[in-house]
């Protein structure tokens, strides 16, 4: 290794500068929405708001976050994400554990069954009919149960379990531990990184899930945040004005309100990222190197 020359520094500097600029450019749309959410409405309508707010005010944000429907949707989203993530992790781990044992009879067949669902599904209408016959229309179960096990995540956890030394289990067995004890007291505590990663995958899925609630939830009080957001933001799209009456046009939420809603519903999941990021990076590497 030779020591850095002026030329190297200049090159590095340029690269850093370029990357920083590129990084900032990706933030521009976000900055625009953020400044719209804290600008005066008249400035937004006149097209004066770019990256920086014009006529700073926080009333719009306050209006949005105190809206009872926003709060209820937020609660639904938090509930579905929390319960869904825990339930998914539990069920996925419970399924992955036996599948990680090579002595399991009929293992190849079972794996094929799982993989089969990865490639083929019944389609929207049969799924809808299934959910309806299960009595889950307008029920939060319809948001959690269909997504309980993601086969991809299952395989990641399975391969992690396989990488744990078998001698750990053998010694536990000698001490008299049964299968469930081994799973909960030995295997799972050793699987922190993979569980955190898969947990984040699930959490982001549940938080962002828009399609299932759109299909299965009709009741206003059970709408998660993404659906609420969709309704608010699409409402202003006047290209669909043909089937709208003047009453709807008169009640279109202001651009500022829409921006504030977008901001308010993005912040919660943004807050989760920094805490899980270190696991995230570690966890994604799992399976890439067999060792």
């Amino acid at each position: 290794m030779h020591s850095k020359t002026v030329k190297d520094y200049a090159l590095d500097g340029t690269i850093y500068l370029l990357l920083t600029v590129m990084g900032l450019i990706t933030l521009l749309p976000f900055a625009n929405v953020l400044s719209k959410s804290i600008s005066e409405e008249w400035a937004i309508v006149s097209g004066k708001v770019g990256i920086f707010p014009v006529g700073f005010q926080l009333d719009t944000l306050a209006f949005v976050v105190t809206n009872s429907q926003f709060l209820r949707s937020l609660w639904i989203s938090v509930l579905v994400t929390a319960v869904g993530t825990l339930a998914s992790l539990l069920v996925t781990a419970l399924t992955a554990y036996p599948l990680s044992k090579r002595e399991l009879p009929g293992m190849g067949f079972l794996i094929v069954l799982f993989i089969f669902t990865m490639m083929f599904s019944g389609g929207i209408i049969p799924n809808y009919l299934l959910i309806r016959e299960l009595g889950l229309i307008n029920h939060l179960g319809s948001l959690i149960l269909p997504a309980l096990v993601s086969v991809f995540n299952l395989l990641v956890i399975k391969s992690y379990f396989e990488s744990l030394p078998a001698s750990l289990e053998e010694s536990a067995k000698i001490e008299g531990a049964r299968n469930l004890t081994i799973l909960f007291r030995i295997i799972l505590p050793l699987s922190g990184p993979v569980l955190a990663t898969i947990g984040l995958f699930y959490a982001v899925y549940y938080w962002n899930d828009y399609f299932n609630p759109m299909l299965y939830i009709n009741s206003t009080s059970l709408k998660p945040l993404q659906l609420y957001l969709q309704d608010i933001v699409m409402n202003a799209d006047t290209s669909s004005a043909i089937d709208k009456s003047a009453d709807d046009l008169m009640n279109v939420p202001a651009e500022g309100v829409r921006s504030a809603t977008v901001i308010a519903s993005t912040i919660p999941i943004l807050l989760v990222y920094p805490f899980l990021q270190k696991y995230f990076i570690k966890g994604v590497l799992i399976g890439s190197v067999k060792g």
Partner: protein
Amino acid sequence: MNKPFKLISVFAIAALMATTAAACSGNDGKGGNTGSAGETNAGGEEAAKPELKRLNVWASEDYNTYPVAGLLEEATGYKVKYDMLPQDKWAEKLNLIMSSGEPYDMVTSYSDMALYSDYAQKGALVDLTPLIDEFGPNIKAAIKQESIDALKVNGKLYAIPTTVTYEINSSILIRTDWLDKVGLPMPTTTDELTAVLKAFKEKDPGGNGERNVPLTIKGDQSMIDNLVGAFGMPNNWNDVDGKLVPRVMDPSYKDYVAYAADLYKQGLIDREFVANKDATAKEKFASGAAGAIVVHWADIPGISEALTKNLPDATFAYVPALKGPGGEFGFAANAGFDRLTYIPKSAEHPEDAIKWINASLEPDTFRNMAIGTEGTHFKMENGGYVPILPIFNDERNLANNFMAGTDEELYPQYWQARVRKSPVMFEAFDFLNNEQPDEAKKANALGLAPYMQQYAKNNQQLETMVGDYTVKLIAGAESIDGLADFQAKYMAAGAEASSGEINDWYATIQK
């Protein structure tokens, strides 16, 4: 290697079939159960009114907790559980719900005749005539016969309409202070409009320099309201010698396009209009860069607030119906329906649904639902209903969403209270809808037309086709010489069939 895989596939398929069979049998069992449950319900109906389920269009607040819901529960004696369709792609969701047989007792959607008649023809809706005869005296009194006729599918009525409440949507909104500055009066003919826009361009009364735009429109607005009327084709289909003709086949189409293209060529229509979105055009007007814009009157409060903040001295008004070179003038006037309410076959309480609608149309209840109580929600001024704010906004803003049918005589008057929420908006609305002479309101002949299969199927696509073509003509990307070719393409793309269907019907009402 091949053999085990085959074996596995056989197992997989067997497993699938087993689960499907199980699902089907479960289905049957449940279907039987609900049937018997329905019967027992019917027996006990006299004693207690059942809870009704209603599906409605999207609203910004929860129907179930909105004050009007409580009012209606008290007045009708029925508890109603409201669900709503999404804002976006509501028709898809509605199709899903209708085809899966959700037991809604009432479904209210935007007035989409194609969708409605599709449901009716597939037997998904309950025939309302016998129910209305038996339980709906108020419904009969409130809905006009012509509305009922327009909604009949194969001679039967399947829906109760809420009609549109006003006629004219939009015109050209012009800066009157700019008019004063250039010393010209409000234009009354297309030639005068050209002169005014020219003066806006040359004298730049707003002091905008490069940014100056005489008239801004949005990219999909190639048929400029008011101007199309001046060339005798205010609606999508207009009467030409006793036949309904779509705009692009209209003999005046050439003249209109020539006029608009000339405005564009002279720089009097926004140079960037092709790329303008709705918000872009409004920005230009609200910031003071544009002297005129084509907008719906409901958009005025937002624009007005911004414009006044930017330029406190700015004033504006709608341009009245302009006379064209042939002496024609007028606005497209709405006719027809805003929403439709129907009862799906899967409803558990169709009779109660009709009773509920009937009770909601009882005159006092309907009035209370529409505008509240006098002194609390509204007051009378000069014979008009004036809302008391903010309580009117809080408790009656979404009232129209609760209506399943309106009193077709009284509601348009009650309804104007909503427009009076904003004085500038009311002024503009009043000018277009109340002050313009009746001759300037050219009713859309197709508004009350019955369902026509070809027209319903093709209309949207054909309108887009013509819209795109007209934009190109105005912006000079296509030459008018190619009109005959385009017309041939247009007729072949479904307009021929639509036209035949429409004029067969039109001939019957001409007599």
